[in-house]
């Protein structure tokens, strides 16, 4: 009888060892899965470009009409785009410019905001890889006088290190 009890105790010890292994495996699995999922950066540049293009359209239009007075005030190099449209094209995390904006009004002027004048952003607009700036183009028709005028807004945002694991 005593021998049987001893055997049972030894068996429980062996099973306890397996329980321990299973517990460790599950813990490592859950912790590493959570770390992998939340460790990867979330790329929000697509949304950021869309929001920015909407803000620019909102700035140059008024209930479907082209704000010709404001368009007249905007500089071709986009130097006063931030102040006129209430936008901030700077990011304290970067020393270089991370934004590119091109507003083209059909048969009218173009406003190109490219602080570094490098033109490097638009080179990547047809590139699907992640470690390049993200582009978004928007077309809107606005009323100028009695004509529907086509306005194209192209926005490109770099911010690679904040959105993609390098």
């Amino acid at each position, binding site marked *: 009888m005593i021998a049987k009890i001893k*055997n049972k105790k030894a068996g429980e010890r062996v099973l306890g060892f397996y329980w321990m292994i299973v517990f460790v495996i599950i813990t490592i699995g859950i912790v590493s899965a959570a770390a992998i999922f939340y460790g990867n950066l979330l790329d929000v540049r697509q949304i950021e470009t869309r929001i920015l293009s909407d803000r620019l359209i909102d700035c140059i239009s008024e209930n479907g009409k082209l704000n010709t007075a404001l368009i007249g005030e905007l500089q071709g190099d986009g130097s006063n785009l931030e102040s006129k449209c209430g936008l901030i094209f700077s990011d304290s995390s970067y020393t270089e410019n991370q934004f590119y904006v091109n507003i083209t009004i059909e048969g009218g002027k173009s406003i190109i905001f490219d602080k570094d004048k490098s033109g490097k952003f638009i080179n990547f607009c047809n590139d699907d890889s992640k470690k390049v700036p993200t582009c978004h183009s928007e077309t809107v028709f606005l009323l100028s006088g009695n004509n529907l005028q086509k306005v194209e807004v192209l926005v490109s945002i770099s911010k690679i290190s904040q959105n993609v694991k390098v």
Partner: protein
Amino acid sequence: MSKYKMDLQKIPKSRKSQVGETLTWTVATIVIFILIVLFVSATAFLSKDKKAILGIGGSVEDTESVFADEQTLLAILEKDNGKIKNLIEEGKLNEAKTEMDKVLADVEKKGLLCDIWAIPDKGIIYKFKTEPRISFDIANLEILNVKDITLQMSCEAKQTK
């Protein structure tokens, strides 16, 4: 009789159940390990292309924004001193359709495909368009109200070859 069975017979009965249980747990541990490996690799695969999505039910990367559509719709309604808007307000939807189709044809020539629906509170739904085409994602529709008629519009950039 196999060697394994003979060996088992030598083992006392109280220990046989322990061997069985240990075997079960060994297999269970291996199965759990494999499942965890699959779980971690699936997580790694899913998190690889983690991307924030705007809109309902999926990516809307290639479609025009709802705000841009709203501005275009307002411009169309206000054209010719609000001719189309007035026709819709007067309930002359057939005439509005003729005018709207003309404007949409112009817009299409300049590279933007748009569909507009006029939905009265009662009665049939009018769809303004220049040619049959694939319907747009319902999540990307802009809605405006003119009197008791709801206007919905959706646009996308024409694909250039």
